[in-house]
């Protein structure tokens, strides 16, 4: 990171250095009753619904992928089966047979 050495950027460095002492506050314990109140509230609230959704999102994506692959496989199978059925249908079609013989 380029440090502030001159010009306006050094103005920021000087300002930040001057402001630092005002930000130094001693470590502080929780105000009286804060922990008790927050613990009670924290345990009273139900787990975040969005968080649960996030936790299951990856599994849901995996499951959706599996279902998609299965659907594709079944659909492809059906397609092949129908394809062969069409061929059979074609053979049983009198007009198609006549046209084929004419060729």
């Amino acid at each position: 990171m380029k440090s502030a050495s001159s010009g306006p950027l050094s103005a920021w460095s000087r300002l930040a250095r001057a402001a630092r002492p005002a930000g130094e506050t001693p470590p502080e314990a929780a105000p009286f009753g804060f922990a008790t109140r927050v613990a009670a509230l924290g345990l009273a609230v139900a787990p975040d619904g969005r968080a649960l959704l996030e936790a299951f999102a990856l599994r849901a994506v995996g499951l959706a992928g599996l279902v998609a692959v299965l659907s594709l496989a079944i659909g492809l199978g059906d397609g092949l089966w129908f394809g062969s059925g069409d061929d059979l249908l074609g053979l049983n079609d009198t007009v198609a047979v006549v046209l084929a013989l004419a060729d």
Partner: protein
Amino acid sequence: MPDAVDPPPIDVAACLERVRRRDQQAARELVEHLYPLVVRIVRAHLPRRVAEEDLCQEVFLKMFSRLGQYQGAVPFTHWVSRIAVTTCIDHLRAQRRRPEFRWADLSENEAQVLDAVLTSENEVAANDALAARELVHKLLSQLKPEDQLVVRMLDLEQRSIAEIAAATGWNQSLVKVRAFRARRKLQKLFQELKRREKS
């Protein structure tokens, strides 16, 4: 800067296990243990008009509601500090940014400090630290919340890039980019102020 606040030692893993079993005493111990860490983050990035205690409470309530998500991949204190950081960013985002930074908005002390850092090579007087702090708040309010956060941690708290990355969950390159962007914006602000002072 080393962590000024060292929470009292407790067995966090055991405490978390008890909290998951809805043990109030354990939840209280956890809050007391983490309070110095959370209040330090909140105080450093406290959006104006939001009470410190309210923001701390919000952080802890989020922590409890998301406890099921904590897998132990990072230290628990890092996980909580990320919640605190994102909570502060959300509040900063909710605040409207001032359209422009003006000399006229500054107090007498703040104007003196700004004049000192812009014009002279002398250091700002030690008793002007509070005015300098206030001035920093006003200048940083012109930046995006994420950039404010990075530049505060880097230049005011003097934390390393690695520490910021751990506390925010952002990778180190992103922290560097944000710091660069923030400092460039500050540089422009100072140039603009200097130009207006001359005119």
